[in-house]
């Protein structure tokens, strides 16, 4: 899958400083079409910042981004969206007092014109929202419900549904399974496999290392704002990844049981 000559995403030399903190220091990232990349690292390693740079929510101090071989500069999330880069944020980025359909379509609501005045096409929004959700196997009884009345898992489903439904070419997911129940985690992983088979490139940020081995093609490890390692999934194991994340030999119990079958 990675043999295609033009990368879907190619970020080089990306740096970002917040005051005294160098959040990203000369970070690179490449992503082939249809590839699933696991981005891991401890808290504060810069995973979220790097993904926000790609989604246009954070503007880097230095570095270049190429999408399908063309250099781009994202000044806002709207620019990244126009380039078909969608992101599921860790905090879900939902508006609590807006209904389910309204959140799914936020920022790109369908229009209808009444006497030349552009109005929201609420009927189309609700119909298409139902279709979008059922295509992804998400059960929401009523798309007119306010998001504040939904459970954590349902909210997460809405956030993922929003990102996956608008023909993305790159889908970034920051801790998409953090608030989910067992069956829901399975559904998200299944969704990742489905969209990557359709040629969508996925960046998955997660602390659940076992998930990486179920869906990823490649893993990139970050440490204190730098890339420190890259592994193809078939060449590594959980213990190896844990050691790379913490930056030393780490006899963690969470990795221990892998020693027998792994290395």
């Amino acid at each position, binding site marked *: 899958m990675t043999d295609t000559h033009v990368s879907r995403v190619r970020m080089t030399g990306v740096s970002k400083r917040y005051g005294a903190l160098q959040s990203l220091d000369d970070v690179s990232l490449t992503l082939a079409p249809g590839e699933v990349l696991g981005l891991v690292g401890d808290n504060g390693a810069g995973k979220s910042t790097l993904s926000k740079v790609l*989604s246009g*929510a954070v503007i880097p101090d230095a570095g270049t981004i190429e999408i399908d071989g063309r250099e781009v500069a994202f000044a*806002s*999330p*709207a620019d990244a*969206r*126009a380039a078909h880069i969608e*992101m599921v*944020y860790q905090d*879900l*980025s*939902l*508006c*609590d*007092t*807006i209904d389910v359909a*309204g959140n799914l379509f*936020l*920022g*790109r*609501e369908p*229009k209808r014109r009444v006497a030349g*005045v*552009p*109005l*929201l096409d*609420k009927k189309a929004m609700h119909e298409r929202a139902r279709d979008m959700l059922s295509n992804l*196997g*998400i*059960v929401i*009884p*009523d798309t*007119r*419900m*306010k998001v*504040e*009345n939904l459970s954590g*898992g349902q909210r997460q*489903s809405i956030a993922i549904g929003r990102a996956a439904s608008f023909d993305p070419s790159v889908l970034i997911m920051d801790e998409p399974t953090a608030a989910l129940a067992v*069956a*829901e985690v*399975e*559904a998200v992983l299944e969704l990742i496999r489905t969209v990557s088979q359709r040629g969508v490139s996925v960046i998955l940020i997660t602390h659940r290392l076992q998930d990486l081995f179920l869906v990823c093609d490649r893993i990139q490890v970050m440490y204190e704002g730098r890339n420190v390692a890259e592994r193809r999934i078939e060449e590594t194991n959980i213990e190896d990844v844990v050691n790379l994340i913490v930056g030393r030999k780490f006899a963690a119990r969470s990795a221990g049981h892998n020693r027998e079958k792994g290395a």
Partner: protein
Amino acid sequence: MSSEPNAYASHPPRLREATLLDKLVANGGVMSIALFFLACCIFFSATTDAFLTAPNLLNVIRQSAPLLIVAAAMTFVITTGGIDLSVGSMLALAATLSAAALQAGVPWPLAILLMLLLGAAVGGIQGYFIAYERIPAFIVTLAGLSVIRGFALLITGGYSIPIEPTSPFVSLGRAWVLGIPAPALIAIVVIAVAYVAFNETHFGRYVTGVGANAEATRRAGVNTRGVILWVYVLSGTAAAAAGVILSARLGSGSSNAGQGFELDVIAAVVLGGTSLFGGRGSITGTILGALTVAVLANGLILSHLSPFFTPIVTGFIILIAIWLNFRLFRGGAKGR
């Protein structure tokens, strides 16, 4: 979540579709003010002879037109999580400048247009500082409250400027069209436009979005700073329109007009169930809130009580209505 039917599929779903009661509870803010409004109307109808007469009711609407117009615009501002304290001062500035412009021989349609543009420009300046310079709306419009009234006082020297009673300008405040006072007619049009804009347009949706979660709305690709700038342009323009109507009705422009007007407007909006924290707003509620404030003032005068009772009673009503709103209607919905 799985698309495969599972062993428990025969269980009834735990979530039911929203019933009428759910919807009433969800619109608790509007419901409580509607009940309050009705209670006030019934009370004053029973205790005074004059209240429930067509001339009196039309008079209430005529007098409350400036309040209704500005409260409609303020609903947008407060729904973004902002506030505009400068509307009373803007009203005074527009009232005095329109009178001054007419006295200087400016044709009346041009005078009105200039006032609306001035209101939009002042709102735009305040909106710029709030949206792009990130200064809290309270601070910016508090400064505006002081500066704008100051200009009105400076221009007039504290005197009120008379308007020629023969000018067609005054008909804006005094004329009757099809049995309805002209200010009321203007207010109805403004409210209808505000209702559609708030509930049925992209702009209205983004106003709610900015109030509910500004960062999420920005990440969704919305120009949130533009939205914030525009709500202050709206409130400035609405305040200028209110000032024009007020000076036309009174036949003079006074720099002392609209003292404390911003508090009446905010009271009307908050009474209507719009949350000061943003994200939740209702034009219907605002109309009811504004009318309640107006009916209280009118009814208390008709009851031959001291007019100084009005602020006392209004204050208590605000507290009780909001309390009811919190306790009675939010109880069924999620408590937050």
